[in-house]
């Protein structure tokens, strides 16, 4: 029910965007998001509405933290 997937914004027309994931395109409404959304952004879409914009900087910080968890050999080959 609260499943929401990160989708890439392809186009914006007023209060509606078209976003895509794995080749599947979906329309979603911007009615309940206050942030500016741009083409190329990743957004979290739930029940036809954009509920959040994915913050790339934060994603990279989390990934950096996660990388420290890898055993030495895995990081070296990555």
């Amino acid at each position: 029910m609260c499943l929401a997937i990160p989708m890439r914004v392809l186009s914006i027309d007023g209060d509606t965007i078209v976003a895509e994931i794995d080749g599947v395109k979906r329309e979603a409404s911007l009615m309940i998001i206050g942030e500016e959304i741009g083409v190329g952004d990743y957004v979290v879409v739930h029940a036809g509405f954009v509920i959040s914009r994915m913050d790339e900087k934060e994603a990279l910080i989390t990934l950096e933290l996660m990388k420290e968890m890898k055993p030495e050999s895995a990081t070296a080959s990555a």
Partner: protein
Amino acid sequence: MNYMDEFRDRDVVLGYAAQIRKLSEQRPEPMAFMEVCGTHTMSIYQYGIRSLLPEGVRLISGPGCPVCVTPNRYIDRAIAISRLSDTIITTFGDMLRVPGSSSSLMEERARGADVRIVYSPLDAVAIARKNPCKRVVFLGVGFETTAPAIAASILAATGDGLANYLVLAAHKTIPLPMELLSSDPELKIDGYICPAHVSAIIGANAFRGLAEQRGVPCVVTGFEPADVMQGVEMLVRQVVEGKSRVENQYSRVVTWEGNCKAQSVLAQVFSVCDAEWRGIGVIPGSGLEIAADYAAYDAEKVLPVSVEETREHQGCRCGDILRGKVSPFDCPLFDRACTPESPVGACMVSSEGTCAAAYKYGR
């Protein structure tokens, strides 16, 4: 890139497993963490998270599936409305097969009721626009992630001047049952894996009371396997260090304040009410009803129907499962009388119910 693969990195997941094991050795007593989101429940089963954790670190599924916590009485009312003439019921797919006291929407549809699955409540508004001579009733079930979308659909109907769009609302908010369950001496919850997308709306700050006043560690956690493992690691660390605070593992999507626009749309269309939770009972202030200004859209007020007397399903342990008291495997019906093909209880029907997840991935 959308980073899906990076958050499924096996080495990262195993790295966290080792780290959790090492940390948990610093505390002789076992720990139990509860997740209160059906998508977490699914992730935990799907990726075999429990098998990666040491014996002393237990994960308990709580009341995180909105369809599952919806009481029979609501289903029965939706069924009664579906039997009215010139009525189209619109709903998210997982409500269809939930058994009410004596029928389900699926059965009603087979008998001729017009019940349609929609992807978005805006699709339901579009159906109302196309069918001016019929009333279109949307089944508004869900937590804080879903409720603003339903609120927005009511605003859209208002904007279009539609008088034939109605919502049968049974929305619920999750922090209050979390507080209730955290003080249950039988459960002894050491921390919460806080819901990801609910938090995108309400903000990580919503759990401060739970962590700071009640002393229950909280970590807002994403859904990918590396997210869940990192979230559990952060919880174990808090327990071991004797800390109790809110941490945000899912900062790429969730902020501390949450989505203010969604919050204001929600506050405009809904007001707080008491709500009945399957298995828990009535929790004061844990529900959302359509506000007086929008009463014309409230199916419960506009459509008086007589609802049959509620009957619970014999032997079904859904209630105890939703409170985290027992696991699906403790239910005498699980995988016998109750399967996804012929579900007896709500937790088996919804794709994110604890029993459905245990059936699909846990057997």
